């Protein structure tokens, strides 16, 4: 037995009455998931986004991040769950949310703001508000899903968020069984994220070159923890999904 293993056993033994298996990670074979409502994405994730963990949806502007997150929230509120949207950039469009099927009465929206005058504004003000709000909501519990929208936060700022913050979020999400979805331009949570989805735009669809009818997006699974052993390697690492404009969807209906 190596000295490290012996040391671990010795520490665990001494702490046994307080923390059973203090240094041994708990074995988890399967992770509960919640469907996003988009068949291609659910197939890619083998069920949906994980419950009680952090999922990151990353990509540039117009890559379908927000549409994907709203589809997920719509599915969750449709199941009578209560969700929250912490909006660092104050960018959520309630009309789009309602058109996606989100029950607005079951959505708590926190709109971060700049408190300083325009000349003295700093990007950290909104980011700090968003992180503190997320922390409070996760600690309060009862929210099935929480979207932390950092879509307008630059990667330079987002990478400065301490890893301890993400670790605390992961612990709180696990304890309260909350799906924390982070919308961002790049992955910030690193090892704390259970799933990272990289989104990118493919092509716009139009009718006769005069009406925008939808968009094709590509979503790629950048990272996924807790993979079960039965994953087929023939599954594609990326999927393509379509989103239609509100007027096109109404026309179809």
């Amino acid at each position, binding site marked *: 037995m190596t000295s490290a293993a012996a040391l671990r056993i010795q520490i665990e033994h001494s702490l046994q009455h307080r923390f059973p298996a203090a240094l041994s990670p708990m074995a988890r074979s399967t992770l509960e998931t919640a469907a996003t409502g988009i068949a291609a994405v659910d197939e890619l994730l083998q069920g949906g986004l994980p419950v009680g963990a952090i999922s990151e949806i990353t990509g540039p502007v117009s890559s379908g991040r*927000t549409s994907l997150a*709203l589809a997920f929230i719509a599915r969750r509120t449709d199941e009578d769950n209560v969700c929250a949207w912490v909006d660092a950039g104050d960018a959520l*469009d309630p009309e*789009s949310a309602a058109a996606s099927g989100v029950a607005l009465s079951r959505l708590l929206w926190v709109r971060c703001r700049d408190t300083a005058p325009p000349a003295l504004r700093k990007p950290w003000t909104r980011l700090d508000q968003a992180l503190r709000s997320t922390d409070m909501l996760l600690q309060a519990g009862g929210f099935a899903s929480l979207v932390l929208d950092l879509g307008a936060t630059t990667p330079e700022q987002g990478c400065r968020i301490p890893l301890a913050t993400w670790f605390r979020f992961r612990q709180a999400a696990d304890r309260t069984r909350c799906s924390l979805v982070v919308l961002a331009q790049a992955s910030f949570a690193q090892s704390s994220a259970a799933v990272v989805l990289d989104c990118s735009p493919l092509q716009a669809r139009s009718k006769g070159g005069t009406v925008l009818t939808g968009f094709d997006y590509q979503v790629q699974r950048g990272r996924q923890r807790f993979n079960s052993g039965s994953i087929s390697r023939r599954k594609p690492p990326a999927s393509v999904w*379509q989103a239609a404009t509100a007027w096109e969807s109404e026309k179809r209906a």
Partner: protein
Amino acid sequence: MTKPLYACIHAAEFPAQALLRLRPDLLGQPVAVLQGTPPLEIVCSLNRPARLKGVDLAMTRLEAEAIPGLHLLARSLESESAARSVLLECAAHFSPRIEDVSQANASSCVLDIAGSERLFGPPPILAARLRAALAAVGLRTSIALSANFHAARIKAAATRGITVIAPGQEADSLARLPVALLGLDIEQQETLLLWGIRTLGELAALPEPELIARLGQQAGTWRNLARGALAHTFQPMEPAFCLRETCEFETPVEQADSLLFTAARMIDCLTARAGARALALASLTVHMELTGGLVYRRVMRPAIPTADRKFLLKLLQLEIAAHPPQAAIRRLTLTADAGQSSKVQLGLFAPQTPEPSRLDVTIARLKAIAGQDRVGSPILEDTHRSGVFRMESFAVAPSQAASSCTPDAAPARMALRRLRPPVAVRVELRDLKPVAFRDAERRYRVAAAYGPWQASGAWWSAEGWNVEEWDVLAESAGSTVACLLVRTMEAREDGRSLWQLEAFYD
């Protein structure tokens, strides 16, 4: 038939007691209460330590200030009214039939407790429980029990603690008490003093016809009172249930946080009183009178009626922190509306929702961070104008029966990410279609433009709009974005239309 039995509660020096019940910091300290207009204030009430220090009623403020260690408070009729309603409410737990017999600066009431032995035990035990209940709400009282209404009233006013007068012993029990307790005026007292009558026992021993012949019919009433034999028709009152606590400060309070010590005690009283009727607090109104004649008023409505003192105090703290009073506080009043205690039957398979009371505190904290109007649920306005909504306070709606079958996957919809406020851009047009635009940071080349979509409305009012919308695919620095450009049709002073980048499709 049940034998009559009355219990009289007597709270002496009520103006002082009403103020001191909300001031635990003055417990055991000598306190005198002043009334009148400055500088002609006089002592109208005092507690026992003050009396031991030599303070007396009608002493002037100057004389009282000369006594070291004496705390002087201003009389508050509101505090007395609140304390009186507390007293009556407490008494109502033991008997619904109560008659108010308050006199001078004492608050007294008589309870008809006939037939309550099975509920509360023998009379001495009932009296002890009644006194303990009043002590719990901060009132020191004396209690007398008698089969005669007036005997109980007179005995309670003259003695301390608990006195139980056995049936038939009323005259003996009252015999040593002074005749002044009958409420005689000075002239009548002097007449009796000239006769050598000082106690009720001596008055009761006088022959009734001769007494009436000399002092009139009222003398017969006095004699019967002194004998504990005067009959009384009980006139019960219905105490109004009003959850209200008031505290007036002798010096205006600058720091709003320091109010919480007083408010905690007031909330305790309110929750206890509501709890005694199996109720909780559905709303809590804070009313403050500030210096300079300003008034501060906030209403807090928990998601569900609650009797959790810590939760209510936290809500109050967050509310005061979010809306601090603009001046020093002279008087604090808490008023509550009672509501049914929440009893929620949770479904075994119902989805998890936030705990209402905890959610209230969380939302109050979020509002302190992000702003009062920036936390809640968005509600779409009934208008064709895009991007119009209002925020409403968030409350968890009751859970509906979840659909047993999985909903079909509806086609996903393109969502917008709004720019608030919209960014003004300079647009290059060719054949009336945008071909490029520039904001403060970069230039976009338009790959495809879909539109224009014209919308207008409310032209009859100042909120009217008339815009032209373009869905645009634009390229910049190797990336493609889909965005919404809006052109305001009203021309500006320079003759150009205003173009704005309102949102990105994402």
